[in-house]
């Protein structure tokens, strides 16, 4: 098995201790760093799709993402040295009053796997905190908001409003998600996109950077 093929399989199986050394080995063998990254992104994509179909499970996403970060930790300095720019910048958080972080973390990991630089503001994030981050980071073009409870869904609306009122609405696209959220609600509060799961969110965010 070739090194890249091996790497792809180890990412999919979540073998964190093996991915870093395999990335190094691929680099030593003269593989193109971008190609190495693509292999890992692709592996995450396969897991993400299986997850969407209900054929892979949350822990498998977590260990695969963890394995990929171990790989990218080795790869990143090389990519930076070669002047590779991230696909884009984004920020993510679970809205005010909501403490759920698993879904939000999965979305973050899947988005990271697409080569997007994404800041994670954590859970129970106030609208003002999003506003402050966007203000301080003009490179940030997408805001990802998560709400897992019907009682915290209004906080999605409030966050969109706060961003609009701060005059930042043209700087960023807003993506929303979480168990009770749907396309209709996203339209209602004026969000730019709704995605049903982490894999779909990662696919969608990339489109924003292409426009």
């Amino acid at each position: 098995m070739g090194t890249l093929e091996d790497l792809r399989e180890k990412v999919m199986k979540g073998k964190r201790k093996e991915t870093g050394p395999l990335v190094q080995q691929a680099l030593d063998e003269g593989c193109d760093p971008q190609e190495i990254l693509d292999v890992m992104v692709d592996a995450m994509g396969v897991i993400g799709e299986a997850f969407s179909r209900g054929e892979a499970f949350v822990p498998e996403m977590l260990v695969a993402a963890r394995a990929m970060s171990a790989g990218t930790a080795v790869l990143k300095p090389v990519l930076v040295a070669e002047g590779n720019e991230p696909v884009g910048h984004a920020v993510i958080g679970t809205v005010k009053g909501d403490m759920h972080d698993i879904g939000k973390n999965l979305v973050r990991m899947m988005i990271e796997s697409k080569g997007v630089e994404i800041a994670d503001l954590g859970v129970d994030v106030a609208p003002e905190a999003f506003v402050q981050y966007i203000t301080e980071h003009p490179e940030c073009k997408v805001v990802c908001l998560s709400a897992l409870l019907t009682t915290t869904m209004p906080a999605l609306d409030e966050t969109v409003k706060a961003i609009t009122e701060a005059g930042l609405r043209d700087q960023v696209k807003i993506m929303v998600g979480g168990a009770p959220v749907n396309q209709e609600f996203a339209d209602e509060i004026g969000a730019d996109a709704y995605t049903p799961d982490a894999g779909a969110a990662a696919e969608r965010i990339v489109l924003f950077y292409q426009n």
Partner: protein
Amino acid sequence: MIIIGEKINGSIPKTGAAIAAKDEEYIRQLARMQTEAGADYIDCCASVNEGELEVMEWLINIVKEESDLPICIDSPDPQVCVDAMKFCDGRVGIINSVSGEGNKIDVVFPAIADTKWGCVALLSDDTGIPKTADDRIKVFEAIMERAKEYGIAPNRLYIDPLVETLGANPESMLVFNECCERIKEAYPTIHITSGLSNISFGLPGRKFINMPFLVLAMNAGMDSAIMDPANRDMNGVLHGAEALLGEDEYCLDYIEAYRDNLFGPLNRD
């Protein structure tokens, strides 16, 4: 969990009939089924009145052909256990069992002393099954004394603290658990096993006693069971409990067993 597959046992009516009729295919299928279901050992118990050693040889030979798993030689007669070891060729198995009763230890421990064989040890003695945990621990300590004498390391022993029928003794589980905890505290590397279905004897809906028994016993330190490895309900509970007890990082074994269709819905479409 170390699972000892219990199906090849002449005291199970269908298996007993297959042994009486020399139905090789039936035994073969039991060996195959238990191997596929993820058993770690295949128990072989002849349960016949005469010619036990010959039946044991027949059973073990079939299992050897059908499975790569090691064998758990199961007989109330310690001499039969020891004599049947030679049928297993190089496969290092488990003797099932000794206890504080009669001369069992005197026969079995010398025979396995210089091997890597394991041994199930029941905490009963010539008076039967001691009522209290204190008395069972006394039997345990006497057994460990003998094991030390023969240089048998604790991790080769599978202690069965014994379960009494819950319907006859409401303290049965509590005594069992106290034994587990005290045994594990004294010898952290030792194994604890149980032929657990006895707990529910005489009760309706037996699985609703057997499944929580498994969980509570695992929580107390039981790390092996003599059971039907193809029992889907028990498999699900077993893998779930292992994950809950922090013995299955990221639930990956649980997911794998689910994916191997060892538990959960039969129809996966």
